């Protein structure tokens, strides 16, 4: 296997806590993405999944910071040691991004076409007419009907689904190797979400762009991801292929999440709950951070942080119970 496109190792992100201390919102996270692959980073609000994505782009808002010892490698370069201009060249050109709310990412007083042209012109020398032609092509590629006339539309003239397509066109404009998509379909209606999911699937298949998909929705994971990493309280607690995680989850948190989704077979039965609430950053329990909500917790869980235990060549969990079952 060739070197992965993106490797993240020991990534920690911290914000100021009470007094002098800093609290970590992302704590020693590691994963990799191969070229053309779609990895879903899944978890509930506050688990650190969006901060992980922002860290990769070096867009952590102040006073947050990436802690020493964190490593991010992208296309065989050390992202954290790049200069600001070097990083700017990577962002947008080599790594594209789309977010949940397309309306807040688009400038309301400029046409959507010229905003995509601007994004292209930031990184490449291109004439006005060539840029316009390229953008109209991109608009057609992401399924914007009547792309030539939509070039001159203002954001408010477009629906949420079309604005998200413009964002995708902008992110894909320079044929990035990695697309970071943070909850790209969460704000969209069901019938529009279906269109965008199909688009994301097709784009990564036709362009070979790898995708880091941030989501809380296992349905979206199943529809587009190749591999999945589940985050809880700032850490990755389980990772595996899509089929492994959805059909044979090993970590009690992954199992609980999947069971708590209302499914048709559960009609007339109680849903399985995960008791308690997601702990907030700075209030994470000792040992295994999930032990306070886990029905299987035993002696080592509150005392000792569980190590990563490989279940297969592709699946691993951070859980004392899994470690005991697998054996040394």
């Amino acid at each position: 296997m060739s070197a992965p496109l993106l490797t993240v190792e020991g990534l920690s992100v911290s914000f100021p806590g009470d007094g002098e201390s800093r609290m970590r919102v992302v704590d020693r996270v590691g994963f990799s993405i191969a070229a053309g692959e779609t990895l879903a980073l899944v978890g509930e609000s506050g688990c650190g999944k969006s901060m992980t994505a922002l860290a990769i782009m070096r867009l952590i808002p102040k006073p947050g910071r990436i802690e020493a010892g964190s490593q991010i490698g992208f296309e065989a370069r050390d992202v954290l040691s790049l200069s600001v201009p070097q990083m700017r060249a990577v962002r947008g050109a080599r790594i594209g991004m789309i977010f949940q709310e397309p309306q807040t990412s688009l400038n309301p007083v400029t046409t959507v076409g010229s905003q995509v042209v601007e994004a292209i012109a930031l990184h490449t020398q291109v004439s006005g007419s060539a840029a316009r032609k390229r953008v109209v092509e991109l608009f057609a590629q992401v399924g914007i009907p009547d792309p030539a006339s939509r070039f001159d539309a203002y954001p408010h003239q477009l629906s949420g689904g079309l604005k998200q397509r413009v964002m995708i066109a902008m992110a894909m404009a320079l044929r990035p190797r990695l697309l970071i998509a943070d909850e790209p379909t969460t704000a969209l209606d069901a019938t529009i979400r279906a269109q965008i999911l199909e688009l994301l699937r097709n784009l990564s298949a036709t362009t070979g762009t790898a995708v880091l998909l941030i989501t809380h929705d296992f349905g979206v994971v199943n529809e587009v991801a190749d591999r999945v990493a589940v985050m809880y309280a700032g850490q990755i607690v389980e990772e595996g292929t899509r089929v492994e995680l959805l059909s044979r989850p090993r970590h009690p948190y992954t199992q609980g999440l999947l069971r708590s989704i209302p499914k048709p077979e559960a009609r007339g039965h109680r849903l399985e709950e995960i008791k308690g609430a997601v702990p907030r950053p700075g209030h994470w329990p000792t040992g295994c951070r999930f032990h306070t909500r886990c029905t299987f917790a035993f002696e080592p869980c509150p005392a000792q942080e569980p190590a990563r235990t490989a279940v297969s060549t592709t699946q691993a969990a951070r859980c004392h119970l899994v470690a005991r079952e697998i054996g040394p």
Partner: protein
Amino acid sequence: MTVLSAEALLEIRGLRTWFPVRTGVLRRPSSYVRAVDGVDLTIFPGETLALVGESGCGKTTVGRTILQLTEASGGSIWYRGVNLSLLSSQAFKPYRRQIQVVMQDPGSALDPRLTVRDCIAEGMDAFGIGAGAQERTERVAGLMGRVSLDPATMWRYPHEFSGGQRQRICIARALAVDPELLICDEATSALDVSIQAQILNLLADLQAERKLTYLFITHDLGVVRYFATRVAVMYLGRIVEVGPTERIFAEPRHPYTKALLASIPSLDPARRSVKPVALGDVPSPERPPPGCHYHPRCAVRLERCSREDPPVVPFSDGISRCFLSLDDRNGQIGGQGNGRTSTA
């Protein structure tokens, strides 16, 4: 469909809620957003009727109009045989007690200046429930215990609680006045999935204990399929299909219902099933398309769909507002069955 049902708890007939779009110096209405445009709906005691649809379809406005938070432009709303639309606000007051609401964002639904005790007791004060402050406080403690909140925390303020806990506070507040009908408007949509399961279980338990009736307004079809007795599907101000939940999901009749169901992501790793069936975008409710509102997005539309309003086609278990459903119904009545009809 003007016949009122004797068993119904709530009946909506021909409900219209239009919002004027005002322009010019004189602020005269130049057009109307037809948020709710001729809706018929019946809710039976003890059931959970899900009202589903995408943003802007008018589902929230239906709920707000029932609660008289928004004025109806036409039609009528009947509660146990009484036409609420004709009542003065004074005469409506007892019904305001019977019909309570739990909304999506528990953060903004609670007054941040009130303690949790006062938030929950507000309705009891308004309707004179409980002999005095002491008795109301005791009732608040009981309600908090019932929704799994620690009664010792009743003197704290809403911001000190998590999203899931705040939704429990909203539920306790609604229950404090012993309502019959609870309108849940996206009540679990803002919650994480592990917390959503807790709230859905709580709502199911409360329904069984108190014989509550739910109008469950949501865009989440997974929750609907798990939780609802019957489903009403709304599109651009109109109800397009009504039926029992299991039949709707197994054999949807309206093309829009079919598109909605095809858009549900699968959780089965052996199957990726999302199909974008509905074409293009949802049009603005200010300018709904002529004829069937769904026709520009419909993959099986007929020529007449863009010109004529489709009829409300009655079936034994609901309705479908589509010309194609006429054929389905004829097949059902003829007993021949053409392979597409339900015998429910």
